[in-house]
């Protein structure tokens, strides 16, 4: 009898130890509204519903997320689950760093989201991530400055946009018609892309992979970016989109393109804020436009526990959790049911959700986003600094991107 008890105890002990040793490493970004506390609740919640599982959450600043991923793969120590920007998918997937997810994502799960959201996450016929954050952008404007300068209606085309920026521009008083980004930073590419897409242009054709950054529509968009910059804050080549809120909050800018959460920040600072969609350019048939940026959670190819990793990803992407995250961060809901939540019916959310109708994916068809973005940044900066014409700069960028697309 004693022996039986002993064996039972031993088996139980082994089972407990065996279960307790299941560890999952999850890499998350911090910065902006992404705090450790707001993301650690996921680990705690998952551990409670999965006894014996330990979730190790690693955090890294947004600007270093890419480097952290690259170096962890180099050290053969990649996290099981990681937060990535969907624009990185082609590079990561083609290097064999990610696990394809089509065997895990059920039809039911797929249908929870707007179909367009998935277009950013599919590459080479495979699904590489589950949506985590989605954003659209519109113009935020200072109603007081518009009124003071006799502007009674918001611009609906590029001519009106330029004319209004000109009217507001008063550098002697430190007030600028429009706030713009030009620093070597990813958000500068996205800011330019807003005008590029609004004019019917694109970086590459997502269907054929052909480079389109030197098309007449793209050249016109960069010419317009340069023209607008005359009425923006000086030295825009050292401003990121993320820093522009500081100028807007201080009442120094007539308008600029940004997220809803920064509009709310400006309201709190006492600015009377209004919204208008990004008007279509002269070469486009669409009246409005916006670039849709999607971030996702992906599974590493180095993970040894794919089932558990997927369970965690599934846990992170329930309707309840997605709603908590989006309302906390001020992101556009990627889930159809989520958009029905009372929070998203508020007046300041409407322009962002309505903009989805005119959405363009940020990086569709681009194979090496970081290098492509750098080529475009060089083009934007050299034009803003009068080092080359939009035509020359974009031709050079196109030559570079063509090599990257091979």
């Amino acid at each position, binding site marked *: 009898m004693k022996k039986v008890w002993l064996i039972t105890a031993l088996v139980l002990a082994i089972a407990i130890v065996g279960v307790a040793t299941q560890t999952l490493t999850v890499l998350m970004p911090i910065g902006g509204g992404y705090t450790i506390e707001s993301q650690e609740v996921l680990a705690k919640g998952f551990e409670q519903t999965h006894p014996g599982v330990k979730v190790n959450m690693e955090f890294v600043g947004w600007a270093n997320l890419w480097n952290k991923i690259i170096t962890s793969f180099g050290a053969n120590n990649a996290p099981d689950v990681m937060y990535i920007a969907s624009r990185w998918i082609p590079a990561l997937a083609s290097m064999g760093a990610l696990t394809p997810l089509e065997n895990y994502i059920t039809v039911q799960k797929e249908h929870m989201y707007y179909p367009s959201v998935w277009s950013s996450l599919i590459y080479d016929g495979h699904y590489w991530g589950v949506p985590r954050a989605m954003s659209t952008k519109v113009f935020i404007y200072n109603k007081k400055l518009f009124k003071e300068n006799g502007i009674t209606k918001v611009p609906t085309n590029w001519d009106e946009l330029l004319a209004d920026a000109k009217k507001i521009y008063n550098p002697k008083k430190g007030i600028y018609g429009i706030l713009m980004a030009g620093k070597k930073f990813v958000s500068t590419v996205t800011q330019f892309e807003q005008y590029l897409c609004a004019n019917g242009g694109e970086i590459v054709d997502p269907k054929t992979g052909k480079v389109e950054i030197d098309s007449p529509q793209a050249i016109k968009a960069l010419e317009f970016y340069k023209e607008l910059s005359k009425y923006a804050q*000086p030295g825009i080549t050292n401003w990121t989109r993320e820093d522009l809120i500081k100028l807007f909050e201080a009442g120094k800018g007539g308008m600029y393109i940004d997220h809803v959460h920064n509009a709310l920040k400006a309201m709190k600072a006492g600015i009377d804020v209004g919204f208008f969609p990004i008007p279509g350019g002269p070469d486009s048939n669409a009246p409005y436009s916006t670039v849709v940026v999607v971030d996702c959670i992906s599974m590493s190819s180095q993970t040894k526990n794919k089932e558990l990793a997927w369970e965690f990803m599934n846990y992170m992407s329930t309707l309840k959790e997605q709603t908590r995250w989006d309302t906390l961060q001020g992101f556009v809901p990627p889930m159809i049911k989520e958009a029905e939540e009372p929070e998203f019916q508020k007046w300041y959310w409407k322009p962002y959700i309505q903009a989805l109708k005119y959405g363009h994916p940020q990086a569709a068809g681009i194979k090496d986003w970081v290098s492509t973005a750098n080529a475009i940044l060089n083009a934007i900066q050299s034009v803003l600094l009068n080092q080359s014409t939009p035509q020359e700069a974009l031709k050079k960028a196109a030559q570079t991107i063509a090599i990257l697309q091979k």
Partner: protein
Amino acid sequence: MKAKKSTPYVFLLPLIVAFGLFLVYPLAKVVMDSFYKFSFLNPSHKIWVGWFNYKWLFTFKLYSPTYSYFIGALLKTVIWVGGSVGLKIFLGLGGALLLNSEFLKGKKFYRTLLIIPWSIPWAMSAMIWYWTLNGQFGLINSLMIHLHITSEPFAFLGYPTSAFISTFVVDAWIGLPFMVIMLLSGLQTIPKHLYEAATIDGAGDLVKFAKITLPMIKPVLLTVSLLSMVWTFNSFAPIWILTRGGPVTATTTLPIAIYNTSFRYLTFGGVGKASAMTIFQVLLVSSLSLIYIKTLRGGES
């Protein structure tokens, strides 16, 4: 008691192990990696490319029609290091002479103040300067406008030349305390009677500086300027935080280029090419250091 012959080697062992682990092994690995093509994302998939990565340094001209990416970065680095180290030596020597002079009161206070730039983490210093140099909210612009030097704010980091100068001035600001403290310690070792004798002989301040001060602090000056040159060559954080190597490629020095090549430009770059760049930088800095030491020692003899 007579020590065994092996005793010194036993004491040296920890140093040899540390030297091997932290210097020889990483350096040998970088040399090896420079002959392969591979990415951090897929490190097991290595392809032997021989000298290709070294040839690439001189042939990859995508970002400039005149120079290759590497040569462009190298030339910028030489000017940037010259500017920063020159400024550190000039201001460092001036500061040390001031702190060593007899007429200055409250030297302890100034010495404490001086340590501040060195005690703040580099990244934090660069962030402080990022906002200090800002075109709209920056302290420097505010001062310039209040003193009527300019009527409109100037974005120092927004234009190629001003960004290039601003980044090496910030780097010099960070490295200045080390220079002052070291040179001050050199100055304090000069016997006072040398100056007294020179005064009796009728020598002026400039003559005393050229004939006594400079020769006496030459060993310290040689060491600190050499160390400063090596550190400045590797300076990454200030530039990355201030400009990320821009506008366009105005502040893309070698460390920035190496970083971009290894971590960011996956198609054009890769670990092998970044390793080749690193080896070239190591050889260059070592050669420059040797030439520098030989020239100055030669002058001494």
